[in-house]
């Protein structure tokens, strides 16, 4: 399976994602320059963390206009797997590939720490190697991870199983204390209707090695590999009805405002 890691000016977790793919899960990986538009040959695209364009104005706001993003959109429409991590998630939101927006952390500070995440939906290409409801430990490092969407969109996300990760305490409760940034309903990661575009604030690529404190992130990538290997058997259509039953068109209508 061939992964592509997009490099925006200011990306700084690009090399980490690359290392995780190549060395931790032993797949082919290549960097994609933000001005390239040809994504043929890639099976999955990673929008890595960092500070694209310095995160000036708003996180992800300027990166969204990079030439590569049109191709990423097309790639997603064609059913390709796209994962946005941290800044990558913020870019996906700004680009309208996922609904909602990021606000500054309610603690008004950058936060770098380990958090507990609950895998709320393991029937996605990014989580199929996790047990349902499993609690995993993954690091976060961001200043703007306070996920916001209008209540009806949040309800829709809940209903359709599109909240993939939530911040929880050790017992698995999405408590106020377990929420590091004020994100609505403790949301740490969401997926699109079709089930092939995931955005998450925590960094799975930072925990693919026990030397660094844990390996819980590795299975995000292993899931993608497994899903991809069996893709021909299950197919994109089945994915969208299977993984995220009853998805609505909310995300696309949000996306339309931004085009």
């Amino acid at each position, binding site marked *: 399976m061939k992964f592509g890691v997009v490099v925006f000016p200011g990306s700084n977790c690009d090399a980490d994602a690359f290392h995780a793919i190549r060395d931790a899960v032993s797949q082919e990986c290549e960097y994609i320059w933000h001005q390239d538009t040809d994504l043929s040959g890639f099976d999955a695209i990673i929008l890595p963390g960092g500070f694209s364009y310095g995160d000036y104005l708003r996180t992800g706001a300027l990166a969204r206009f990079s030439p590569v993003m049109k191709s990423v959109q097309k790639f997603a429409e064609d059913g390709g797997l796209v994962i946005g991590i941290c800044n990558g998630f913020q870019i996906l939101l700004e680009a309208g590939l996922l609904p909602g927006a990021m606000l500054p952390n309610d603690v008004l*500070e950058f936060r*770098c720490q380990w958090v507990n995440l609950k895998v709320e939906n393991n029937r996605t290409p990014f989580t199929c190697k996790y047990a349902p409801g499993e609690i995993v430990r993954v690091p976060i490092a961001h200043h703007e991870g306070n996920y916001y969407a209008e209540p009806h969109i949040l309800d829709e996300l809940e209903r359709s199983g599109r909240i993939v990760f939530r911040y929880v305490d050790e017992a698995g409760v999405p408590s106020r204390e377990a929420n590091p940034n004020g994100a609505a309903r403790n949301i740490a990661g969401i997926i699109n209707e079709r089930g092939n575009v995931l955005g998450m604030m925590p960094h799975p690529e930072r925990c693919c090695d026990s*030397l*660094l404190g844990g390996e819980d992130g590795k299975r995000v990538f292993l899931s993608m590999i497994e899903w991809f290997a069996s893709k021909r058997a299950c197919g994109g259509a089945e994915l969208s009805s299977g993984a995220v039953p009853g998805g609505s068109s909310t995300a696309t209508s949000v996306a339309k405002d931004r085009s």
Partner: protein
Amino acid sequence: MAECVTPKDPAPLWRQMGLKDEEYSMIVEKLGREPNYTELGMFAVLWSEHCAYKHSKSLLRTLPTKGERVMVGPGENAGVVDIGDGLACAFKVESHNHPCAVEPYQGAATGIGGIVRDILAMGARPVALLDSLRFGHLDDARTRFLFGGVVSGIAGYGNCLGIPTVGGEVYFQAPYRQNPLVNVLCAGIMDHKDLHKGQAYGVGNVVMIVGHSTGRDGIHGCTFASEELGEDTESKRPNVQVGDPFMEKLLIEACLEMMQKGAVVGIQDMGAAGITSSCAETAARAGTGLAIEVSKVPMREEGMTAYDVMLSESQERMLLIVKPEKVEEVKAIGKKWGLNAAEIGQVTSSGQLQVFHNGKLEASIPVNLLAEGSPVYNPEWKEPAYFSENQRFDYSAVKVPELKQFGEILLKLLAAPNIASKEPVFRQYDYMVRTDTVQGPGGGAALIRVKGTTKAMAIATDCNGRLVYLNPKAGAKWAVAEAARNVAITGAKPVAITNCLNFGNPEKPEIYWQFKNAIEGMAEACLALSTPVTGGNVSFYNETEGEAVYPTPVIGMLGVLDDVSKKVTPGFKATGDVIALLGTISGDAVSLAGSEYLETVHGAVAGCPRDPDLALEKSLVDVLVKAASEGLLRSAQDLSEGGLAVALAESCILAEKGADGAVIELGGTGCKAVADHRPDAVLFGECNSAVVVSLVEEDVSRLKEICGELGVPFGVLGKVSGSSSLRIESCMGTAVLDVQVSELRDVWKNGLLRAMAGDTARGTTE
């Protein structure tokens, strides 16, 4: 030009620019004529203390700088040390104290930017940052403003660069109130073959400037850094420089790519004194000259003169010396990253730095005179009165607390901002990016693994200014020793240091005495520990209205851990493990000198700290490294602020689940009994060469053997109990102290936040 000369100020121009009368005469004599305005400005910045090391040069020469691993010693942009496997580490620490006193956020941010470019200039990829910070006490609103601003400035800039901030230190002590210290260490990594230098070789080669455009920012910034802060600080302040971490990130990637492509003959960051210093220094090192055309420098403001351009301290710029046939390639890489990459001149054989503006010669100065010609001062020194008073300090006036108070005292120390967890600081730093941080902030030294090898680099910064103030020579030795110990408790072998020497006004004999003694102490300790000095930075004039900071020679220690899987961490690991003390605890009253206990509990900064036994320190380091390599150590924590009791408490607090709690019997061998000495000195005394370790019972004899071979005292202190309490017993079996670990953890974890709680207004200067 004329706008800089205030008609009301009758002082001659050179004095307004910060040059002394005799320095000006020297310039006229050596130049054989009067310098013009632009030239005078160039001299003023390059002959400032900040750039010229006028008051420190002669003593810095006495530091040991040789070692088999040292590839580049002092004199270049950063020291470079061989770490094996064909790899090298470039590392250096630098201060940004004065800018932070004025504008903490931008001051700290641009401080990071500057040190990162120093490392980049060696050809290394910057991979780690550590910040060593000093402020006044947190009950002061201005201090809270400065502290908050500095930390968020470091976070704002460092996080954006994607260079993890993996460690550092923070002290809160009264003398830093008006003059905070902000020192930042950066380490980078490279293949030996990628080593670059700041040298302008090759007549005909092209001088290029890469990165930001040049504005009028920070003109005369380094002159400012070479003065005491006073009432008129505000008016003297150069335009505040605003850091642009995004640009710096692009600059790093672009320059690395340019160097990788073999396009770069010489490279130098533009820090203090901007184009002038980078040109003069690169040419002086190579024995060449440079001709610069100012109008080719990309500018961001209109109407800039040659003077403005040559002295601007605009951030995020690098000077490159490029072979003519590689110029297009450099430009193309610049373009790819969205950066200016402009040809601004050539390398010449003239030995002069010639500055042209639209073809008209504006300045012509021998590069040697600019870069190396400044006078060197050997100021007078005088032992300050306080030093002999210290030696007469009457410890019997410090009442020994009743035994039942010891638990409370330990809690008070753990809550003290100097000892409490610095997590509220470092959780604002991305310390994990690059996925190499094997041990981040919160343990001893940081451990940065080197991908593709089994190795890790260990890095720590240390300096207890209170000890250095009370006894500069001993205090500087303790700083080196503690830094080495912090590295060694991870299992890594300390190999070399960099330093940042923060002192008051060297023209005052008492201050120069502090400086001289601190240098002597550092030199002695570095020799004893085989950790040569590879570079550093001097920051003088850290005084406000005549009050100097504690003399603070911050040590940045680099270590190498050959097998990262053998790393040791400070927390206890398993119930039943034996707790032992390596080294000695003196337990006498003198060990209270300059201790956190004496200040926090008794309100005194007093006593005369004794010298460390450097031979013992060296052996202790060797024992730790050997024991770790044999996998004998389950945990290791050194004794520093708060002494033995705090070290034990920290090992309990950081313990693995189920392994918290310990029972300690101080009658154990190697450690003097409580009954023989002051119990407060045994538990809270500092200036001990000692480390608390834990290990499985079966390994005790082997560790004892190693200690015996290397001559390090070994004593069993007790056991990891898993009882969730730290119980310290006297030799008679009665508890001196018995505190729940949850309580210890609570005060330690929240101490800093609690000290900060208060009104959040920006403090006023008074």
